[in-house]
Each structure stands twice: as structure tokens, then as C-alpha cells.
């Protein structure tokens, strides 16, 4: 307990930054992921190809490698300087977006074919089929797996600690400078993650129950 109370500043700073990084990357991954997801099911073949290449490449790249490109590679490009926090967040957004895109695509594909056929039979265009008929229904199927993607994103924020970003995963490195007990420190970090993830999982179950009957 002493380890926690003596270094509360570090823990609070670490988990605040993790929270900020998580919220920013969740929001932007949701936006980018829906665009990519729509690309993947669009009528235009080049658009589908771009979406597929994006998803397949990003999903087969380790997040740590992506962060290395951004955190260590980007500053060498001679572009406007950005801090490590921003660069790591961009990497996390690009990575998470590929998973969001897949969730959207399978959500739309899970809707009964008759829905699309009926919508098309009454003369709706692709855009209208999507907005008026498919997406509102897909939304329900999509929320639980989307929450799993976000839970993964929350845990993935810790990868940034390899690239000088102060967040929950980097608490232990700072604590070792203060000469604190690392085992206890890491157990506290693990406990806080456990609580956060359980909270998100409870939210997920709530959504699932809410929409299960329909």
C-alpha cells in the first residue's frame, strides 16, 4: 500500500495519460475504421482493394513495430516535430482502425440478405441501402465486438512505454529510478488495468443484454 500512496503522483499521471490516449485513439479509430469498413464493401473495385490491403497489412503488423516507425522513424523525416505521445497515439489509431473496419464489415454482412434485397427491390441506391436499412441494424450486432476492440486498445496503450511515452505501462520504469519495489508496483498497475477492463466488459454485457431480445 505504501508503494502506491508514496508515489500517487506517478500512478495518477500514468493512468491519466493512458485514459487520454485511449479516448483519443478510440474516437479516431472509430472514424477511420468506419471509412475503411465502408471502402471494403463499396461497389467500386479499387476502393475495395484499398480497404483490403489496408486491413491485411495493418492486422499483420505488430503494434510495437508500427510505433517504432512513428516514434523513431518519423522524427528523421524532417517533417514538423511532434511529441512521442502524439506519434504513439497515431500508430495506435491506425492499428485499431483496421480491427474496427473488420467489425463493421462483418456486422453489415451479418444482416439477412433479404433486407438488402427488399431495399434494392424498392429502388434504394447503395448509399440509401447502407444508411437507411443496413447500418441501423448492423449497429446492434457491432457494439459488443467493438467493445472488445476498445478493450484491446486500452491494453495496447502500454506498448507506447517502449518509446518514451509516459503512461500506465511506463510507471514501473520511473519507479525503478525511485528505487521502489517493482513487483508491488507492477501488481498495482495490473490491478488497475483489471478494474478498468472489467468495467468496460460490464458495459459490453449491458449492451449485449439490452439488444439480445430483439
Amino acid at each position, binding site marked *: 500500500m505504501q508503494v502506491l500512496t508514496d508515489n500517487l503522483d506517478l500512478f495518477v499521471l500514468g493512468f491519466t495519460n493512458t485514459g487520454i490516449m485511449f479516448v483519443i485513439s478510440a474516437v479516431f479509430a472509430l472514424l477511420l475504421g468506419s471509412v475503411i469498413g465502408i*471502402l*471494403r*464493401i*463499396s*461497389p*467500386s*473495385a*479499387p*476502393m*475495395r482493394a*484499398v480497404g*483490403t490491403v489496408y486491413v*491485411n*497489412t495493418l*492486422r*499483420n*503488423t*505488430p*503494434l*510495437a*513495430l508500427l510505433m*517504432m*516507425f512513428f516514434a*523513431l*522513424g518519423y522524427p*528523421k*523525416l*524532417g*517533417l514538423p516535430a511532434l511529441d512521442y505521445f502524439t506519434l504513439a497515439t497515431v500508430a495506435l489509431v491506425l492499428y485499431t482502425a483496421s480491427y474496427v473496419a473488420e467489425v463493421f464489415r462483418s456486422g*453489415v*454482412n451479418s444482416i439477412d*440478405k433479404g433486407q*438488402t*434485397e427488399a431495399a*434494392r427491390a424498392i429502388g434504394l441506391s*447503395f448509399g440509401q*441501402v*447502407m444508411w437507411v436499412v*443496413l447500418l441501423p441494424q448492423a449497429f446492434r450486432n457491432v457494439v459488443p465486438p467493438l467493445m472488445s476492440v476498445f478493450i484491446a486498445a486500452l*491494453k*495496447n496503450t*502500454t*506498448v507506447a*512505454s*517502449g518509446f518514451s511515452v509516459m503512461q500506465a*505501462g511506463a510507471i*514501473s520504469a520511473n519507479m*525503478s529510478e525511485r528505487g521502489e519495489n*517493482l*513487483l*508491488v508496483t*507492477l*501488481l498495482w*498497475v*495490473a490491478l488497475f*488495468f*483489471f478494474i478498468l*477492463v*472489467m468495467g468496460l*466488459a460490464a458495459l459490453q454485457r449491458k449492451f449485449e443484454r439490452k439488444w439480445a431480445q430483439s
Partner: protein
Amino acid sequence: MSYATQELFDVPGPKARRRSNIAGFITVAIVVLIVAFIVYQLYRSGQLDARKWQTFTFPMVQQEILRTTMSTMNAFIVGALLALGLGVLLLLGRLSPVRWVTVAFSWVTETFRAIPLLILMMLLYYGLPVIGATFVTPFVAVVGGLMIYNGSVFAEIFRAGIQSLPSGQSEAGYAIGLTRGQVLRVILAPQAIRNMLPTIISQLVVALKDTALGFMVTYPELLYLAKFYGTQFQYGSPIIPAAIVMGSIYIALCLLMSFIAVRVEKWSSSDSKRTKEIPQYE
């Protein structure tokens, strides 16, 4: 996967085709612009200079890269096998007829799944030595982390696989006098494994990607090497070339496994169609 979305739109007429061509052209143009910009920036900042890539032409360095690829695969294979074992163990615990055992094992599974893998590895590597565990090498930390995290994920996959089978399967097994273990081994497991194989392989891809976290506990895998060569000053600190070289190896390995996953998925789904047809004959 374009065939799967075919019912979303009509066969395009001339007008729709033109519109779709324009949209496709714009998309491609945007992508080309982005890629061209990145390549131009790489060129302008001298990342494509021969000097920066020179390091990777030395046979010594190439051998080192090969060795490191092997040690990456080594950690992955050992970690994956142990994870599968732990997954089965956690599954058996959760299926136990004793209530408190089930509850305990499901808490353990949930806990392992909720802790970020990196924190698990750091707990093993930096945490355990505090209480005098001297056996924790970087390899042990990476493999242990992979085992604990993926083991709990596998346990969930297995459980979902077994619960998705119709309950008539196990009831029929009990009816002919099989024990719990026999029902699980002879009736449920063979069917569940085939259904779950694609999911298991894609989780293995995740495990392979996660070996990249090893560089934070100083395990000599590909990213560790990329960082090492990338900071060699006498070759002009080629961090971007190093990341490109090591990254390509990682991506190639993962793509290969994903490809296998897709093939297996096709194979197992066509197989299950065949088994669905058999009862109709009888």
C-alpha cells in the same frame, strides 16, 4: 472477399459504372499521393541513401538477422505450445462439476485476459527477481507472458467452441454410458476443434505479433535488433531502413500464418458442409 458483398448493389449500369470508376480513381489517386509523399520525404531526408542500407549487405549482419528470426520463432513456438496446454488446463477447470473450482478457474481466466501482455512480461522479468526468482531470463519472461495471456484466450475460445455444439451431442454420449471425460474427449473435442481451428490460428497470429513486445524485456528478437542497428552511428543510424527490414520479416511471417488460417477456414467450412449432408443420406 468481393463475392460476399455482391448482393449489396445491382450489376452497375453505364451511369453507375462511370460514377464508380470516378470514385475508384479518386481513391487510388489519394493513396498514390500519400505513398508518393512518404517516399519523397524518405528520399529528401536521405533515408534511401545507399550508405543507410549498407549495413544490411554484410553477411555477418544477415546471419545475425537470420539468427534473430529463429529466436523470434523459437519464443513464439514454445509460447504457443505452452499457451495451448494452459488453455486446455483452464478449460478443464471451468468445465469441472465442482462449483467452486469452476468459479475459481473462470476468475483466473478473466484476470489473465484483463492484464496487458506487456505488464505480464514486465511482472515476470522485473517483478519476480524482487522475491528472489533468479531463473527469469528474457526468454522465460517472453514465453511466460505469451503462455499466460494466450492460454486464457485459448481457454475462452475452447469453451465457446464446446458450448456452441448442440447439447444433444453430449446427452447422447451420456445416454450410451460414457463418462464426462469420455464425452469431452471422444465426442465434443473432435467437433469443437474443427470449428475452432480458424479462430485458434488467428489467435496464433496475434501471439506471433506479440513476440515483438519482447524487446522491452531485452529479449533479442527482430525489433530489438532493429533498434540496435538503427542506432549504429558509423552507418548513419539507419533506424528507418532497419525497421523496414525487420518489419518486412515480421509482416511476411504473420501474412503466411493468416493465409494458412484462411485456407483452413475454407477447408473446414467445406468439410462441415459435407458432414451436414451425411445425415440426409441416412
